[in-house]
């Protein structure tokens, strides 16, 4: 069943197209991510779904009901804001109860829901604190608790972990994923971090300059990028051109050999990168002004020297067309 349906929505700001016509259906319980560089229109799309911006054209359906012209307070979904937007004059508890209070939920039920949300976000110890007495990670949890306490049909999250440091982000990613599974609520998640998108999402929408580059599961997007942008934005890739066509080969599909004549291209080892879980060679090609990145097999215990002449090759099956 479709939970959200976007039908040719587009957005112009003072004559400038910020979101090109976009159609998208999102299933109930799906974790969908809008992924793209800063300024590509992700927040604008979320704000249109939440009701803070009117699409210049097109329609939005929520659970089969047209909501295009409904004000935000009348849409059964909640947004976790990029900078949390917690109410500074309310305690954690009051923040979380706010939505229920506005919807005139009976007090006993309010209490129950707030407690449930507190438990799910591990905030039970902090109920009486004010937002300024919390760390960034705790504030983030309150923002999420405040949204899920309303049991919305859809939860929109705008770079919710963007302001946190890497360690905290990693642990909150895991928590978010678990939360989404146990709630079964549809999530629309916005991020510019491709790794985060890969880790969390059922499907990813890759955006660039207000346009969709590709929609697919993390696997589809990684293995068969449709555009040059998608190929280079997600993970590392080597882009080759031959006969006016562009194709991409992932570093893990590149083989490096010492027998130069057996390889399709020749080059010089320019750098050796060892990261523990990855071991990479950067090879500067002789005939083309480009570097090829090759990820070495773990079983591979050959030693390499910078400056060494090598050949690189790949199985043509691993070539992915990304344009011409």
């Amino acid at each position: 069943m479709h939970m959200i349906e976007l039908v040719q929505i587009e957005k112009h700001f003072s004559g400038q197209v910020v979101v090109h016509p976009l159609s998208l259906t999102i299933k109930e319980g799906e974790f969908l991510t809008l992924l793209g560089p800063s300024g590509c229109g992700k927040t604008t799309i979320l704000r249109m779904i939440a009701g803070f911006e009117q699409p210049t054209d097109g329609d939005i359906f929520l659970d089969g009901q047209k909501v295009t012209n409904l004000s935000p307070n009348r849409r059964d979904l909640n947004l976790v804001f990029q900078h949390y937007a917690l109410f500074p004059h309310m305690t954690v508890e009051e923040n979380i109860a706010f939505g229920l209070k506005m919807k005139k939920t009976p007090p006993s039920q309010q209490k129950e829901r707030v407690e449930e949300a507190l438990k799910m976000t591990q905030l039970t110890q902090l109920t009486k604190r004010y937002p300024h007495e919390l760390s960034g990670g705790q504030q983030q949890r309150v923002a999420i608790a405040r949204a899920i306490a309303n049991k919305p049909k859809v939860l929109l999250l705008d770079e919710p972990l963007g302001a946190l440091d890497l360690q905290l982000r990693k642990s909150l990613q895991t928590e978010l994923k678990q939360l989404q599974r146990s709630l079964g609520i549809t999530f629309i998640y916005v991020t510019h971090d491709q790794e985060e998108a890969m880790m969390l999402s059922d499907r990813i929408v890759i955006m660039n300059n207000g346009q969709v580059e590709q929609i697919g599961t993390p696997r589809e997007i990684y293995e068969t990028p449709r555009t040059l942008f998608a190929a280079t934005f997600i993970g590392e890739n080597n882009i080759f051109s031959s006969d006016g066509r562009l194709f991409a080969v992932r570093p893990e599909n590149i083989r490096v050999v010492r027998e130069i004549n057996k390889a399709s291209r020749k080059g010089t080892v320019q750098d050796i990168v060892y990261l523990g879980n990855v071991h990479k060679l950067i090879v500067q090609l002789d005939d083309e002004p480009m570097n090829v990145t090759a990820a070495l097999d773990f079983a591979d215990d050959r030693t390499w020297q910078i400056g060494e002449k090598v050949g690189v090759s790949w199985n043509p099956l691993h070539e992915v067309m990304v344009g011409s």
Partner: protein
Amino acid sequence: MKKLRLIHLPVMIWLILFLIIPILIVIGISFLQRDELGNLVYSFSLESYATFFDPLYLGIYMDTIWLSVVTTIICLLLSYPLAYYIANASPKIQTWGIILVTVPFWINFLIRTYAWVLLLRTQGTVNNLLIALGWIHEPIQMLYTKGAVLLGMVYTFVPFMVLPIYVAIEQMDRRLLDAASDLGATKWRAFLHITLPQTKSGIMTGCVLVYVSTTGMFVVTDILGGAKSAMLSNIIQSQFLGSRNWPFGAALSIIFVVTSLVLIFLFNRAMQSRYLAAREGK
């Protein structure tokens, strides 16, 4: 509390020289006596404080508090909507709004107050207009009434209320309103639950400014109130400049400062939420 630093020294010296010492002098004088010529007699006495309990002065004291409170409330009711409108308008209207609110300050205060005399007196603009319109047949006595004083006070101090409230609304994080709306709040409930508590500091500042300024203002009462509507500030002024009874003037001043401090303290207590207290304690 923040540590005192060397950089605070000039301010501290300023405060000590021009605030603390004068107040101490006034307190000192209030316990002295005077001779028939009005010269200070340096012997301790509570006479000035006793004089205050004369029903005449007690009445004026209550009148003054009442006038100041009413002025503050009317200023607040007029200023909040105005400040709200200006703070939410386009940048151009905001600039013009603030200029218009402050324009009266560019004109000499006495001239502005005398302009009210021209408007309100028996042969004044308002009466003439009402008679010309046929709404009244006899001129109404507007000048030299308590109403005229109230009008003059409100007129004079509205900007003192508008400006701090405007700043508070202007500085408020508008995303909070988006968040409230997202959580199901109507515009009115978002105002009640978010905007109003978030701008409380502006309201408090404005109220204290207007209240304190009204209690200390004697020119408006002099010009628009005439002899019958004297406020405590007029009495204080006349004790120092007219009757040359400095100890009594000083005692009245001290009584008034203490009253204001107590009222402001109670007002703060009533207005201050746990949140503001927590913020300040931090």
